[in-house]
């Protein structure tokens, strides 16, 4: 049997694909901003003197890093309503991404914080800076610069992982591919195109994050 590829029928579904790409990008932006925020807070908590807090954050990180994103997503979307916590599918997708990236970035940012030379913290203290000031101005900036490449890779992984959000009917890119192949019965073409779009997104996001990292962290390093 010879199969004839037909990508032309995908043209009719361009709006569906655009909507899918836009949703994937939106989920990624929201997940990244909030997730990295949690990561910074989590890393600060893990290197704080408060022992119960450190243990709680450690448990959160290990629990999330050792279970699949898909199961976390199902737990949030299908499991939490039995506790009376209901949310639309896009909110569940963002929440799952934030919790997931939050755990990974806690661990990544903590590694950067651990690499801060102790003398710098002491120098800050001797200038009369308060604890939060030291964290904000001395520890966090250089730490973020050091771990930016690792954090960027994790953001790309979370974006690609968001493809499973189609399973709770979030209308992102892989949902668009599912929708198209259910209409034109050309699964190979639909998934091939969606995969190519994901690849382009991954390359684009990686490029953008590298540029952002350069602007935010390299300028200061060059001056110092």
């Amino acid at each position, binding site marked *: 049997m010879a199969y004839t590829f037909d990508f032309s029928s995908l043209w009719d579904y361009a709006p569906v694909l655009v909507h899918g790409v836009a949703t994937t990008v939106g989920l990624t932006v929201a997940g990244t901003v909030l997730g990295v925020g949690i990561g910074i807070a989590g890393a600060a908590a893990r290197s704080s003197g408060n022992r119960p807090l450190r243990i709680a954050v450690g448990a959160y990180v290990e629990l999330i890093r050792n279970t699949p994103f898909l*199961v976390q997503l199902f*737990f949030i979307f299908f499991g939490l309503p039995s506790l009376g916590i209901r949310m639309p599918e896009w909110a569940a997708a963002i929440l799952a991404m934030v919790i997931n990236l939050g755990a990974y970035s806690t661990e990544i940012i903590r590694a950067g914080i651990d690499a801060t030379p102790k003398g710098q913290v002491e120098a800050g203290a001797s200038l009369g800076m308060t604890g939060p000031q030291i964290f904000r101005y001395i520890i966090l900036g250089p730490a973020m610069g050091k771990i930016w490449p690792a954090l960027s890779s994790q953001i790309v992984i979370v974006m*690609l992982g968001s493809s*499973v959000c189609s399973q709770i009917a979030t209308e992102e890119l892989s949902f668009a591919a599912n929708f198209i192949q259910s209409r034109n019965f050309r699964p190979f073409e639909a*998934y091939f195109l969606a995969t190519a779009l994901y690849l382009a997104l991954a390359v684009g996001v990686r490029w953008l994050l590298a540029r952002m990292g350069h602007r935010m962290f390299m300028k200061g390093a060059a001056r110092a």
Partner: protein
Amino acid sequence: MLEFSLWDILSNLLLAARWTVALSVIAFVAGGVAGLLVLFARVAPVPPLQGAAKLYIELFQGTPLLMQLFIAFFALPLAGIETSPWTSAAVALTLFTSAYLAEIWRGCVEAVPKGQWEASSSLAMNFGEQMRWVVLPQALRIAVPPTVGFSVQVVKGTAVTSIIGFAEVTKVGTAITNATFQPFLVYGLVGLIYFALCYPLSLSAKALERKLHAAR
């Protein structure tokens, strides 16, 4: 209506977890072998081979595992190969694993000092001999902790195969949820089963890393 006890649910999930473990082992072993081939191509002094290996790694690291699974599921039949969820899942996860392992191992190979390559080539060793006798033994030492750490990603990756209908623990969890209407309990247990599989791997990766740093 049938009633399901907690034990009914848990025992069925644990039976399904066998398939999660089986698929993980297959993907990890086959992916390791394939990853070694990709690694050789990636570091060989042959530019076209390097380029091809680079593209291969980029393709699998730049696209979602879910899409790779769908393409394996729908494209293999186009090439006249009969597929089941089993074979598609095993093929896709193996390729996925091979790309990541090749990239992890490349870092380890590049951590071997350049002088080692030069010394061995001055002894008239060819590329294969250099890799076999000089570079890989040294790279292996530092490769073990990140390789064990990556096995966690393989185990978690098997969850996605539930979407193409492979009956591992997530898929069976969904089926049980549909029968018992207890998603909180069932997905909670599914998560704990994954945790029980992955956490020991994470811990041993961390312990191996500490041992390696202490040895240096």
